[in-house]
């Protein structure tokens, strides 16, 4: 709370600094702002920036280190009896003190020494807050007046402000980038821990998936197997079924929308089609599990086929419907981006509309269409909910779409739900699966981007 108040005060000071800077710029210009290098507002921003940024930096560092420093100080003053405790017991004492300070419930009786330490802690905290306010205020006023006094007509205030803004933008962009790196690193390190127990080749090419580990050597059912091949096969099978549904339907609806449909029809239909992508996957999931899967089983039994009640076919079909808009919407855009001149050229040679579409428009748009399809595939591979609900959990190594199969994502979910210990191969296997999935979809995305970029160069 205290930090928030400080930031609010800081903002107020910055606003004042902005005004002062602007006024100063006006007075330096002697009424004619053409004498200035930058517009007066930039001088205001320049001063406000110098007031705000260093103070914010100090505030940040202070908040990060404050509690550590205070804790150390409090610890140093604790009675010898408490100080000589083991590390984990000491931590408990520290959290007792901190709880006491913030007025939360404290574990057990409050010891007199802890009470004293708490009060000490509070005093130190108060001093720290006061010191922080003084430091920030003097920093703001000092730097503010210094930069205010330096304002002159030749100063490049605009350039400085724009550089600072660029810096802010870079910081924002790097957050997304660093997050990706962070996720990748954590997955990578956990996977390496897993691969110390289970060899990489066993994991990638093993044919049996039964993720459990024995606690004792003589335990029943202690044979854990971490061969992920059935999961890869299941993932590929379901994605393949999904693509068999989505690509023909999506592509054909894209051709219809872009080449044949009237503008009004298109304006209504395209958003409707895109809604398919907006339905929560869990809704698709129970649609697949409760409607499609039983339907397929019933039809199958009529034909005398053995169909599992949870089948890859049901999950794949529903997933295919879900990703139709990925294919159709992107393909529609690239087909419409094919220059009219190419169509005219084909028409001018006496090609019919169908011939023009088949032989000129689609080949010209193909790279873009492939890009859309690849994006749809990576979506299909990463999809979890539908498969959990409709395809089951049994890791069968089977290419039969009527069998129950499972996928990489589903296994990650089952490995990590519930209470798990994070040092057994069972849970670490989830990270290894995640790593494989990550590499696979990353590769697909890179290919998709490459293909799409190649397409862009074609008609310049």
């Amino acid at each position, binding site marked *: 709370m205290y930090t928030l108040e400080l930031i609010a005060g800081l903002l107020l000071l910055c606003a004042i600094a902005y005004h002062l800077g602007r006024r100063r710029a006006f007075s330096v210009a002697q009424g004619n702002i053409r004498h200035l290098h930058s517009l007066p507002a930039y001088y205001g921003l320049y001063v406000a920036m110098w007031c705000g940024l260093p103070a914010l930096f100090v505030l940040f560092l202070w908040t990060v280190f404050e509690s550590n420093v205070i804790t150390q100080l409090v610890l140093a003053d604790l009675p010898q009896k408490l100080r000589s405790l083991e590390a984990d017991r000491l931590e408990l004492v520290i959290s007792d003190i901190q709880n006491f300070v913030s007025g939360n419930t404290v574990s057990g009786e409050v010891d007199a020494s802890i009470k004293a330490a708490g009060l000490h802690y509070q005093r130190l905290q108060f001093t720290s807050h006061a010191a922080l306010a003084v430091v920030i205020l003097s920093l703001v006023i000092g730097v503010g007046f210094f930069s205010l006094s330096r304002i002159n007509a030749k100063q490049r205030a605009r350039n400085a402000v724009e550089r600072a803004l660029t810096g802010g933008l870079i910081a924002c962009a790097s957050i997304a980038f660093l997050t990706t790196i962070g996720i990748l690193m954590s997955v990578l390190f956990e996977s390496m821990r897993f691969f110390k127990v289970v060899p990489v080749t066993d994991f990638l090419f093993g044919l049996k998936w039964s993720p459990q580990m024995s606690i004792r050597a003589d335990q029943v059912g202690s044979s854990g197997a971490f061969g992920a091949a059935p999961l890869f096969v299941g993932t590929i099978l379901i994605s393949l079924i999904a693509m068999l549904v989505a690509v023909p339907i999506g592509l054909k609806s894209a051709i219809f929308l872009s080449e044949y449909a009237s503008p009004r029809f298109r304006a209504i239909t395209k958003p409707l089609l895109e809604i398919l992508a907006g339905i929560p996957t869990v809704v698709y999931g129970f649609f697949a599990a409760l409607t499609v899967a039983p339907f397929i089983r019933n039809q199958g039994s009529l034909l005398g086929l053995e169909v599992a009640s949870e089948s890859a076919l049901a999950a794949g079909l529903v997933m295919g419907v879900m990703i139709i808009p990925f294919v159709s919407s992107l393909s529609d855009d690239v087909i419409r981006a094919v220059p009219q001149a190419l169509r*005219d050229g084909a028409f001018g*040679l006496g090609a019919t509309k169908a011939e023009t579409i088949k032989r000129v428009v689609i080949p010209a748009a193909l790279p873009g269409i492939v890009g859309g399809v690849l994006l749809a595939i990576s979506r299909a591979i990463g999809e979890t909910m539908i498969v959990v609900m409709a395809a089951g959990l049994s890791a069968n190594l089977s290419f039969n779409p009527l069998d129950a199969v499972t996928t990489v994502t589903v296994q990650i979910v089952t490995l990590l739900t519930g209470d798990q210990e994070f040092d057994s191969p069972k849970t670490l296997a989830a990270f290894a699966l995640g790593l494989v999935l990550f590499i696979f979809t990353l590769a697909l995305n890179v290919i998709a981007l490459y293909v799409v970029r190649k397409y862009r160069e074609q008609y310049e």
Partner: protein
Amino acid sequence: MMSLDSLLPETGSIDNKTDHKTVAPSFKTVGEFKLKDPRISCQNIVVRYGEKLAINGLSLDIGRNEVLAMIGPSGCGKSTFLRCINRMNDTIEGCRVTGKIMMDGQDINSPEIDTVPLRAQVGMVFQKPNPFPKSIRENVAFGPKIHGFVETKAELEEIVENSLKRAGLWKEVKDRLDQPGTSLSGGQQQRLCIARTIAVNPEVILMDEPCSALDPIATAIIEELIYELKKDYTICIVTHSMQQASRVSQRTAYFHLGELIEVGDTKQIFMNPKNRLTEDYITGRFG
């Protein structure tokens, strides 16, 4: 300049006509718009884009094995007229063409006429070179393939070679027929488009400002090519370059605001125009 207004009593009414009745042409075309033995005879053509009147009752004959140049300021309807002759206006939504276009005793503007054989017979070369994103060979082979002209690969190769030779491109591309057509230079691309048109063996070739995107050297090559092609084909060319019209054509037609002002022997049009508007345009006082 000041005399223009008096010459054009109804100009304002041409562009913004809202009723669908034909407006009486405000001009009587000067010169011989009718020929004795025309290849194509256009009679009283009216074209509207939605409510907008683009061509207002135009009649013009196109002779056999002649190059007819169409000149005029932008928006005067030359390209629109050109696109009537192979029904390319069908592809534009809201465009309606009325009138008779007689070719081989048939009205090719009638809805019963199938545009597929018509466009094979009346080919078109566009303003901007528009090779398909396929190989050079595939570009030329496109027409013969879709019309089923060929059965064997050897026949197709022969057509490709002949067409490229007639378009004057063979020597430059014979060693790289499998490279994409888009890899050629602008002038080569345009000659490739001409070869592509020739490959379906048309009788009439329509050219819509074929050199406007090309440099002077490429333009000169194409102009020479047009001169050569004239022996076997009837050619209509829309151009903004009056030098080009005078170099390549035998007859020239001057269009103005959707009407045909004057048509006649190219030499006569450029040396001795009869209509004041034509004179103003070719002497650069207008347009």
